[in-house]
């Protein structure tokens, strides 16, 4: 019994700690579903000490150039052994990112997931282009079952973001999954080891995973055709991050993988 109390107290502390920076609210309404183009999420598990990782970044830039930045949405998750040296984490490392890396049982870097397809199978970056093409054309999940409307503001004085996410059901059937919201930052000036073994001190890091706004594995959402599930979130941003370079990556996933994703720049006041 004492153990249960202890667990409850610990759980309470964790929830209080989380609520201090992030809060959420939820309501359900109905609308006429709009048309929605499909976008694809590439999770790039990378590291500043990984000499081959800039090659993966180049491939992401190539895919964004080919498909557009609203279709290919990449997130560079600094994690794994190449984000640490002698146990010390690199500047862009996050514990949540490392938790994903370990949860997916990854070992090499760079490695990525394309819409978490095929039970979240990891792929080398040379396969990502094939994955994007597959997801947009051949995949059974190439039709988006949901779309998002995201509205909110970021207050630079309090460094607080408040926004609502409307998840709109497009599928004829009710669909259940997880709504995930990540904060990413572009144009971060930090070092990177390069393919020739050299170290570039001022490498321009793009779409870097900074934090999960909600639970690292998302919030439950069930939505039918024409239904709108609205959730409210607030968060307080780390003082070292640059708000105008930040964006929200919002995605919906289920056991078939990521079914829709969108990237929204912060509306900075």
């Amino acid at each position: 019994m004492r153990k249960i109390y202890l667990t409850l107290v610990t759980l309470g502390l964790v929830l209080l700690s989380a609520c201090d920076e992030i809060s959420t609210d939820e309501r359900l309404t109905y609308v006429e579903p709009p048309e929605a183009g499909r976008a694809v999420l590439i999770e790039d598990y990378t590291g500043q000490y990984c000499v081959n990782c800039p090659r993966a970044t180049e491939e992401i830039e190539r895919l964004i150039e080919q498909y557009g930045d609203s279709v290919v949405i990449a997130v560079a998750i600094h994690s794994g052994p190449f984000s640490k040296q002698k146990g010390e984490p690199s500047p862009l490392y996050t514990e949540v990112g490392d938790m994903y890396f370990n949860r997916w049982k990854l070992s090499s870097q760079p490695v990525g997931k394309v819409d978490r397809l095929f039970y979240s199978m990891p792929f080398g970056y040379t396969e990502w282009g094939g994955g994007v093409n597959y997801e947009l054309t051949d995949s059974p999940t190439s039709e988006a079952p949901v779309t998002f409307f995201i509205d909110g503001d970021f207050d630079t004085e309090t460094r607080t973001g408040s926004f609502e996410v409307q998840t709109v059901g497009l599928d004829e059937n009710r669909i259940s999954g997880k709504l995930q919201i990540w904060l990413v930052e572009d144009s971060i000036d930090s070092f990177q080891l390069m393919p020739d073994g050299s170290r570039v001190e001022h490498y321009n890091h793009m779409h870097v995973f900074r934090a999960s706004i909600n639970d690292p594995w998302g919030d439950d959402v069930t939505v039918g055709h024409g239904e709108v599930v609205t959730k409210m979130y607030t968060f307080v941003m780390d003082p070292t991050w640059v708000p105008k370079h930040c964006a929200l990556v919002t995605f919906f996933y289920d056991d078939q993988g990521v079914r829709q994703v969108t990237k929204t720049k912060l509306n900075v006041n």
Partner: protein
Amino acid sequence: MKKFFTLLFGLCLSIGSLQAQEIDESFVFMDEEGEIIPNGATVVRNVAEPYDDASEVIYSGISVLNVGGSTDYIKMTYVIERIDNGTYQICFPSTCNMQTVTGTYQTGVGQLMADLQDIQSEWFPVADGECIVTLTIELFTKQGLFPPSYVHKAFGPTITLHFIKGEIPNPGKPGDVNGDGEVNIADVNAVIDMILTQVIDKAGDVNEDGEVNIADVNSLIDMILNN
């Protein structure tokens, strides 16, 4: 004596089977001087260089050469036989891997970035000691667009990297292959293991001809019988 004959017979059978195993040499290992490293060879590296302000690295200087413009996909299987301290790292052909403990590991499958690619195989020691890694190239053909499947085609060459930081370990007395201070059947077994697994240590070169093979087993048996 009967045990020796049985052992030798088994060894001959095993060597016969090893020789029958085809090694695909579309991809070969190459050293810093541009010399092809023969299958089964051991490369010793003992020059530690500064890596940053606080650490050192011993580079292998090994590359893989695509001999005939092969379009096959490859990966490296590497067995860390010994790592006294620090970290072993390999970046090949398109991913990087890092380990601190012994075991069998594999890189991702991919194609070479160029006809000659540095495998960026390095040991980052934090103290004197050794790191012994056996590398084997494996070739694949790619099937399907996405998700692709990689079908095993052949095994390529195997080499052993022997990194040494600090004093080169005392080789011990002649024939004491396993370093236990005695020369006996256990040393014969150690040499046979080296031949069969192709994880070669210089201690197994009993007759000091630069190779570890059946001649070393014979030399060891002679030593034991003559003592």
